[in-house]
């Protein structure tokens, strides 16, 4: 029974978080806020990725298999803009680096 309550509560709160501004917003936001919100993708993605590269795994630090694979993948993404290639190179390099 507890599981059902959790499912319900998580579903409702998640939907409200997603829908809040979309469904309720009436007046236009101030220009400064509007501009800051254009930076949301960059800000959130970087906040997700950076700790994942530097702090995860057994050899956390500036240079570890994850950060090296991530940096090379970022280079591939920059040069090719190819999502699939970025994923393949990143996963492949991490597999190589952690195999030894």
């Amino acid at each position, binding site marked *: 029974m507890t599981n059902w309550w959790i499912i*319900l509560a998580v579903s409702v709160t998640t939907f409200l978080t997603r829908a809040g501004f979309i469904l309720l917003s009436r007046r236009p936001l101030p220009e400064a806020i509007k501009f800051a919100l254009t930076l949301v993708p960059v800000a959130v*993605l970087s906040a997700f*990725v950076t700790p994942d590269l530097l702090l995860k795994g057994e050899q956390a630090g500036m240079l570890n298999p994850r950060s090296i694979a991530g940096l090379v993948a970022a280079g591939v993404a920059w040069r090719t803009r190819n999502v699939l290639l970025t994923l393949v190179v990143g996963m492949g390099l991490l597999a190589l680096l952690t195999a030894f």
Partner: protein
Amino acid sequence: MITRAQGSPKFSSPFWQGLRDFLPFVVALFPFSVIVGAAMNAASFTQVQAVVFSLLAFTGTGQIVAVQMVGDGALPVLAVLSTMIVNSRLALYSASFEPVIRASPTRLKWLCAYLLTDQPYTMTMSRGVHRPAPVMYYLGTGTGLWFTYQGGTILGYLVGVRLPAAWNLDFAVPLSFISLLVPLLRHRTQVATALTSGIAAVLLASLPFHLNIVLAACFGMLVGWNVERFSTRGEGGE
């Protein structure tokens, strides 16, 4: 609603374009969805509960956090609270997506809100919201993610076993974020935002409930906004 170039074949509409653009992300998000499904199994959710959870909540990170905390015997209230904090970035998405969807009918807004997730949101914003039919493009990417996620969580639940950690499958998701992030780093404002947010997220990493993500993001946006203000002033405004 569907603004389609006259005479163009059906599959080149923005919806299909979004769905097609999403395809490479399946490689990252299917394994992730499998991990979510396996986590629900491990936390003794029934098969029906797992399916209903993915259908209603549709939040990979949120579900993982919730079921892991329940599995660890945490108070249900705390599990729900943690998912709310983890998902607080969705409120930022919601606020920045609102102008894109303002003119759409209410029912469509509900659907778009339900589908609001990292990749479809970011893909639509970086495609450029002034290109034709951003909402249809968004629905295309969201549809791709929805099927990937529902299929992956079911498979993960059925397979059930913990996937070998040595495969590093969890690395696929940050990689997919990298492929979304890098093309956005075109100007110093964006670079400053990413650097600040990234460093702040590392420094704040010990905070509970992944609070570092949304705090670091706000900090990064603040710095980015200031960089933009000073650089446009120097260039005589834009």
